[in-house]
């Protein structure tokens, strides 16, 4: 799939979301082209996580439209299921199932949702564990793995459902510094294979080298979006400059 | 099949008469049992192996058997021994009331000892060390630091234990006594209206339970006044 065919696979149109009295998203619009990698950054509480959690309906948006691969997200359970089959998600806290081994974590959804046999599921799971470079940890429980290994298992678990789109919600924020690289490397490989990705992260090195588009959010709005070269060299908004100044200092 | 409210109104006063005995059993067993429990706990933490072991076995046996069986062993069982029938104790032990008090007290002691032990274990070790650093002696540390905190930590479970005991007192209706349940059973035997009468009795118990919970709530506030912000 050519990276700049221009065909949007995700469309957010004036999406709003509030929790009680707090407005987390104030009319967010974003088009993601098939095969593109979008990095979303911004201060905490800016609505980044809420936005991507709306895309697979972990949160329900209150207003506007969300269309994923031609399917509009409505209250229809059928649509939600269809979208969730297309969209994989990786969480900050990994959320591996602690009572299942690494390979069992990968096998669960293919068996239950796609109804494939145990044997096929195991073969599939091993294939993806190899892709994230930890087939030898297959029979360990999450508690026996390092944070970096756990997050790679979590990525593999999502890939097993063969999604078209992968969402990453601060995938390296809960990791010790020495483990961040192994996770980013896996994500970089995935990017090269043409996966559509939305990544909420503060890893600006990753954004520079991998992203097609960098989005900066603040206070529930998209303040600025641009290709990385432009975004880092000539940020237009003061808020973006302030934010970049803060995190690039380190 | 129908539920006759009139029957409830008629029988409630009689059932409430049985409440006196229920409360007597509850309060007496609780006082004796709690005193025994304090002794048991002191044995458990004494550091003397024989005492610790004895207290452990006692607790294990009384928590591991039904209270009904404990009551029957004392009420029906002790009469098997001539020595007991001939002793001065027989004055008490032939009375179902004192048998019940004895059985319930021994039972409550075992459970309460475990609750208190849990409370003592819940006291932060650092406080102990602080007490030692200040030069307090062992018994002073226990009386002024460990005990007050342990009591606060034990209160919720102790409240549940009181409610358990209240419910357990209903067993005396099986050894010819007329507590709330005993009275209710005699009325049912006459009217054969089990729903109305037993539900009335249950309501009386629920009121008592509610009172106990209120009391424990107040005590928790009293002992925990330094915890609240």
């Amino acid at each position, binding site marked *: 799939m050519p990276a700049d065919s221009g065909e949007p696979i995700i469309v957010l149109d004036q999406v709003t979301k509030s929790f009680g009295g707090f407005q987390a998203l104030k009319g967010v619009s974003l088009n993601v082209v098939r095969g593109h990698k979008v990095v979303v950054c911004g201060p905490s509480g800016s609505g980044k996580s809420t936005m991507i959690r709306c895309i*697979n309906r*972990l949160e329900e948006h209150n207003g506007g439209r969300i269309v994923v691969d031609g399917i509009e997200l409505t209250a229809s359970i059928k649509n939600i299921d269809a979208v*969730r*089959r297309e969209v*994989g*998600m990786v*969480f900050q806290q990994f*959320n591996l*199932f*602690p*009572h*299942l081994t690494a390979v069992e974590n990968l096998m*669960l*959804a293919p068996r*239950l*949702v796609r109804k494939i046999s145990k044997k096929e599921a195991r073969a599939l799971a091993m294939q993806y564990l190899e892709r994230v470079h930890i087939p030898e940890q297959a029979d360990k*429980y999450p*508690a*026996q793995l390092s944070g970096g290994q756990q997050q790679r298992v*979590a990525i593999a678990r*999502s890939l097993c*459902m063969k999604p078209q789109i992968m969402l990453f919600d601060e995938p390296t924020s809960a990791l010790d510094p020495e483990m961040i690289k192994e996770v980013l490397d896996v994500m970089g490989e995935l990017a090269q294979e043409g996966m559509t990705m939305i990544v909420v992260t503060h890893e600006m090195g990753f954004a520079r080298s991998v992203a097609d588009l960098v989005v900066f959010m603040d206070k529930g709005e998209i303040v600025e979006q641009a290709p990385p070269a432009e975004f880092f060299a000539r940020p237009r908004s003061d808020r973006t400059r302030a934010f970049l100044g803060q995190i690039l200092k380190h | *099949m129908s539920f006759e409210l009139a029957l409830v109104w008629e029988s409630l006063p009689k059932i409430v008469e049985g409440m006196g005995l229920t409360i007597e059993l509850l309060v007496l067993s609780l006082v004796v049992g709690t005193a025994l429990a304090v002794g048991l706990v002191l044995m458990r933490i004494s550091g003397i192996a024989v005492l610790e072991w004895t207290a452990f076995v006692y607790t*294990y*046996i009384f*928590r*591991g*058997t*039904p*209270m*009904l*069986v404990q009551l*029957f*062993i004392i009420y*029906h*069982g*002790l*009469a*098997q021994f001539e020595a007991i029938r001939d002793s001065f104790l027989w004055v008490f032990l032939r009375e179902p009331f004192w048998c019940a008090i004895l059985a319930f007290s021994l039972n409550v002691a075992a459970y309460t000892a475990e609750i208190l032990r849990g409370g003592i274990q819940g006291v932060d070790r650092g406080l102990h060390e602080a007490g030692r650093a200040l030069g307090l002696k062992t018994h002073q540390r226990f009386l002024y630091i460990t005990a007050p905190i342990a009591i606060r930590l034990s209160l919720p479970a102790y409240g549940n234990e009181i409610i358990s005991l*209240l419910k*357990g*007192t*209903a*067993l005396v*209706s*099986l050894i010819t006594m007329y507590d709330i*349940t005993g009275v209710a*059973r005699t009325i*049912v035997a006459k009217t*054969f*209206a*089990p*729903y109305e009468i*037993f*539900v009335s009795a*249950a309501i009386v*118990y*629920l009121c*008592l339970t*509610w009172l106990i919970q209120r009391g424990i709530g107040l005590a928790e506030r009293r002992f925990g006044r330094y915890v609240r912000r």
Partner: protein
Amino acid sequence: MGVVVEWLDAFLWGALVVLRVFFVALIFTVVWGLIGASAKLSDSAIARGIANAYTTVLRGTPELLVLLIVYFGSAVTLTGIAKLVDPSVKFVHIPPFWAGSLAISFIVGAYATETFRGAFLGVDRGQVEAARALGLTPAQTFFYVRLPQMWRLALPAFGNHMNSLIKDTALLSVIGVEEIVYVADRATTMTNKPFTMYLVVAIIYLGFVSVIIKTVAVLEVYANRHLDRAR
């Protein structure tokens, strides 16, 4: 002790009855516990209210009274219904075994609802989100993700519930179930050795409770195996 030997068979059969009641009641207890816990965690105020009332009432009513209400109450109701169909009917009741098993499952189930509720709350929210993101249905999420994790948390308290269940079986002689207290009662009238006979009952219960305690300890090790850091 010679007298005990003669009654050993009867005690053995009685112990078997205790076990049967225990296992039947155990299953019902888990069912009431899970239904009650789900109700307490549901969005419906009515479901929460019913579940809370269930716990409050059963926790405050003596076990003996619950047993009497379930057995005699159901008998009056069933007899009433039967008389509508056939006026010549005298007495219809649930067999004491079933009435007794149900009654003690109601009692302990009330405590189990609280235990299970706490255990479900103890399972991290992210687990449910991850399952949903992978496309699992709510039912699949319940059975494959939440249930296997909550039972580990519920186990210690549930061990106590099992001990309550086995000890509550001692009440069933009151409605004529031929368990070990019933056997001891009969043996006493024949031999006039009440202490000996009830002591046997106590020893049998102590044995059952010890087995439960041991089993729960083994299960806890098994349930927590995935938490051991094997490095």
